[in-house]
């Protein structure tokens, strides 16, 4: 927790006068909601940190992160719980919202816990999809191929 405090990004929102949700008790907790259309993984849970892969790069989000909107890239989301354990999920795409009151909504189009993915099947699909990927120059098709590879 000490290290997290050092690593926390500066919070411009506190310098602005028109900030709402200023309650100090609220900003030390992150209300984390992580869901796909068919399943909810975290609902307004309190977690320490969330690592997400976005189109503009990989983010680590801690409580009182500056508000932002991002779009996800296919990749692995890691959630660090309050007790220190980490849970990893593969997401195909989606969006993440960090609000001023430290609530985070991570909405994924498809999300699976990593231990549900079969490594051997994934490798076989990866080779098939990589040949597809070489021929598909379109970003979307590439993302699809990556998704299929890791499904």
């Amino acid at each position, binding site marked *: 927790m000490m290290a997290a405090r050092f690593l926390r990004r500066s919070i411009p929102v506190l310098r602005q006068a028109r900030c709402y949700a200023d309650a100090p008790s609220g900003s030390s907790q992150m209300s984390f909601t992580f*869901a796909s259309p068919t399943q*909810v993984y975290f609902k307004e849970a309190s977690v320490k940190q969330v690592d997400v892969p976005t189109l503009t790069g990989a983010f680590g989000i801690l409580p009182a992160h*500056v508000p932002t909107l991002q779009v996800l890239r296919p990749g692995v989301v890691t959630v660090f719980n309050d007790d220190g354990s980490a849970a990893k999920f593969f997401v195909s795409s989606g969006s993440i919202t960090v609000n001023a009151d430290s609530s985070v909504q991570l*909405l994924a189009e498809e999300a699976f816990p990593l231990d549900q993915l079969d490594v051997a099947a994934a490798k076989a699909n990866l080779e098939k999809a990589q040949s597809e990927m070489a021929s598909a120059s379109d970003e979307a098709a590439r993302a699809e191929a990556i998704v299929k590879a890791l499904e």
Partner: protein
Amino acid sequence: MFARTSALVFLPQCQWHPIFPTPILVTIRLKSIKNIQKITKSMKMVAAAKYARAERQLKPARVYGNGAVALYEKAEIKAPEGVANKHLLIGVSSDRGLCGAVHSNVAKAIKAKIATLTGEGKEVMVVNVGDKLRNILFTLLTHSNYLLLSCKEVGRKPPTFTDASIVATELLNMGFEFDQGAVIYNRFRSVISYKTDEKPIFSIDTVANSENMGIYDDIDADVLRNYQEFALVNIIYFGLKESTTSEQSARMTAMDSASKNASEMIDKLTLTFNRTRQAVITKELIEIISGAAAL
């Protein structure tokens, strides 16, 4: 419909039913009502099974949908007042009937919104998901100039995220530059109740220019556009899920009351049948007895 040559009898309890001249006609009617009762009972069971599944799928979908609109609520995004806005209404319903007032509630809400918005001089276009809505709203030429897009084949199978994304893609391809809008759907409250509700949708420009967006860091136009498109799909998906659950529960209730009405009719008709039968027998007996007495 067989010819009813009988008179209507006004019973003291303020009910009425016709006197059938022969027991045969009563039997025919009784048989057809019993068949109808079988059909409504089985429809009720099918609707109950579909409702159970829809409600199970609704739980994660609700969390998902609430997460999607959280941004709009927390940042208090509003379209600029007073400007001639273009509105987009998405009405979510289904193709199938026999489910109570589900479709007409959504249609009423849409009609009311069209009336207020055109009264304020704003431009409105409507997207309807589900054929029943199209029948109610648009075949009567009164509102047909508001129709932007119509979607069918809704309601046979439970809606998926793919369905919602197809609707959103087609809608965005139509190129209607709306400023704000709403998704109108039936929000599921319990097995016996649902409420027509709406969730707001905003265009990219409205969100970008909204005053509270300044606190959100590191947003460029591309990211915002992707985010908005994804949010649109999420809201449509949420409306679809809630609508199907409300529709199945309404159909369950409607078929249940239809079965009850049918069994009431069956009871009354059975009594009538027995009375008619006994009347015929008594008449024959009287004829025989008076004939024998005449000898």
